[in-house]
């Protein structure tokens, strides 16, 4: 009950004594209890093996190398029916990641905009955002996904595709959007330079212990523009906009999203944008009015107060919540199985049905998700502990 970790360790403690202190009181009872729990788990596991043996199965991961005789409608890598199950699962995993990353990006952009609009000071606008948040968060995500997929089924065929924005087409076969293509050279050195520069600026700010002056920002901005531009000119990189166009019975060019992917993306973004808007709002509200007033008393402008005083404090509330929201979104990509998007769960479900190796396939699924979520939640915990150590929040 007392927080043992809050006390400093006694000086000159041996490693064994430290372990005994960590293990705490009732050492024998604890050991017996844990051993009993482990034995119960082992019994359950052996029961599973017995059950499998009854239907003539042995646990093995051999099926991963066997050919998977099903098609997958969308894939980032080359895949044909007959490739191995391992490759099929990889295809599903890549689809999951594609959906998770684009969904997090879209939901964050939408959610932060809504959260800022909510706090912008217009009561009517704030009420409208509130209504959106209430509706999105008080109806099941599954229902919203059902609605979006049903909506894509009512879209017109390709020949009469809707064009809500110039060069963006909606049809029953999917969504077609303009896309930027890179030709004639490599773009990654420029991107790597930008990442390096951002990291460098961050380190310099840390080292200086003060916000950068206008000249210093100007220097950084000049480097951020000139160096990539120089690289692009030197390497002969050309950008081209690839616009979708109606040709015959098909739309070619641009980037195309399947109806299932589009429904998942829109559904997850709309749902999680509401959550993120709430997070942004509560983060801004967690900074008391006195902070704004103190900033004003120092003669700072509104944007400077926001940048120097309010945001750094709000980010302490926002960062861990935002991270766990992204994690939740990633977990909810599994709902794709309900509306026919072939993400990793759907592939594994099909594999389990085809091979009969239900136990092993589902364990693979569990491992995949633990590999994604355990590091993220460890990072959140570490962040919170760091803040708690600095006495900024009560842990």
């Amino acid at each position: 009950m007392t927080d043992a970790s809050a006390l400093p360790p006694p000086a000159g403690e041996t490693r064994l004594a430290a372990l005994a202190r960590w293990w705490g009181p009732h050492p024998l009872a604890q050991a017996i209890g844990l051993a009993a729990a482990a034995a119960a788990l082992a019994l359950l596991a052996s029961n599973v093996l017995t059950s499998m043996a009854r239907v003539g199965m042995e646990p093995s991961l051999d099926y991963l190398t066997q050919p998977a005789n099903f098609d997958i409608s969308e894939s980032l890598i080359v895949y044909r029916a007959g490739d191995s199950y391992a490759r099929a699962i990889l295809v599903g995993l890549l689809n999951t990641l594609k959906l998770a990353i684009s969904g997090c990006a879209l939901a964050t952009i939408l959610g932060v905009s809504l959260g800022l609009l909510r706090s912008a000071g217009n009561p009517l606008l704030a009420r409208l955002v509130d209504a959106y948040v209430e509706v999105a968060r008080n109806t099941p995500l599954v229902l919203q996904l059902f609605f979006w997929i049903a909506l894509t089924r009512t879209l017109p065929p390709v020949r009469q595709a809707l064009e809500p924005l110039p060069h963006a087409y909606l049809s029953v076969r999917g969504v077609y959007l303009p896309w930027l293509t890179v030709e004639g050279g490599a773009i990654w050195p420029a991107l790597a330079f930008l990442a390096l520069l951002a990291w460098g600026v961050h380190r310099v700010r840390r080292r200086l212990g003060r916000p950068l002056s206008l000249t210093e920002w100007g220097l950084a901005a000049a480097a951020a523009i000139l160096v990539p531009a120089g690289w692009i000119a030197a390497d002969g990189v050309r950008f081209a906009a690839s616009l979708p166009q109606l040709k015959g019975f098909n739309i070619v060019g641009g980037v195309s999203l399947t109806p299932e992917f589009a429904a998942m993306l829109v559904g997850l973004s709309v749902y999680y944008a509401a959550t993120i808007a709430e997070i942004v709002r509560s983060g801004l509200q967690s900074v008391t009015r006195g902070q704004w007033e103190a900033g004003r008393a120092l003669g700072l402008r509104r944007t400077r107060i926001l940048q120097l005083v309010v945001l750094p404090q709000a980010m302490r509330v926002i960062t861990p919540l935002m991270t766990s929201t992204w994690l939740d979104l990633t977990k909810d990509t599994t709902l794709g199985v309900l509306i026919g998007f072939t993400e990793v769960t759907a592939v594994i479900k099909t594999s389990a049905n085809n091979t009969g190796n239900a136990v092993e396939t589902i364990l693979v699924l569990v491992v995949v998700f633990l590999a994604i979520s355990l590091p993220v939640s460890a990072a959140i915990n570490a962040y919170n502990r760091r803040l708690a150590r600095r006495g900024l929040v009560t842990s």
Partner: protein
Amino acid sequence: MTILLEGAPLAPPKREALRRTIADLFSSPFNAIVTVIVAGLIAAGLWAFLRWAILDAAWSGGAEACRAHSGACWPFVRANAQLMVFGVYPQDLLWRPALSLALMAGLIVASMIPRFWSLSLALGWVAVPAAVCLLLSGALVGPRVSTNEWGGLPLTLLVWMIAFAGAFVVATPLALARRSDMGGLRTAAVAVIELVRGVPMLVALYVSRFIVPMTAPGVEVNLFVSVETALILFVASYLAEIIRAGLQALPRGQAEAAAALGLGYWRTMQLVLLPQALRAVIPALVNLGIGVLLSTPLVAVIGMTDFLSAVREAASHEQDWPGCFTTAYFVAGLAFFSICFVASRYSRWLERHIRADGHA
């Protein structure tokens, strides 16, 4: 009873409040433009909804009437109400799910009144789900009905109720173990909580469907039982973290005062710490309850006909009722929304009520 003056801001008189709101709406030319644009958007949205729900809607007749109208298709709801609410439960025994629904709704309403909070109410959370299970299965009276035929709103509420009530039983020891000063126990609790929280609910349901039945060879494990096992563990891992946060937020003096009174560990927890911790996390508890209710439709993936899948089943008669999915999903969404909206408003009221009583 103390009278709280500070912390209870005095509301300005109604007219004054109205005047201030109007001033805020038009505080600057830019703000005035935003107000007008937003008001226009809201009006357009309301008008579109009004046309869909009332003016252009089909109110009577059958599928032909719906085809002739571009709005909502209310006859569809009337024709499919029974399927949507009760699923595929046998026609002649519908009084059972209806009675179950009434029992569960009664318990939930009773639980919302702080005056009724007592040991007997807690027992009610054990007795009512058990009674509903007996009633639906027909173990006491009349013909047996297999769990595969349970469905609709009663099933959704039952799944939710058992998962949530059961989770309390599992989560409280887990939270205490995680706060314990016994290293081995603490590590085990952390492992259970993090591992279960790390997987999506859908994956937990697959585990319950395919792996849990195999842990008891030779015994026919009912699908409903294995699903509830998985759900209880899943919800408990989230609940344990909420309870832990409540315990952590208590000032150390509470535990020390209890120790000074000579209370042991269990009495301290039972009489001093847990009641305060639970009270402090009521908003989070209600949020979790809402979250679990909104996630129950996932049980459809392993073949249970909950409320939403019953609605989807009804809406799948696409050729009989063209375009009815909007109406069907609207009705389902409205049902979930009303429950959750009331629950979240209730949670805010309760928070204020408890603070006004001077408990927290």
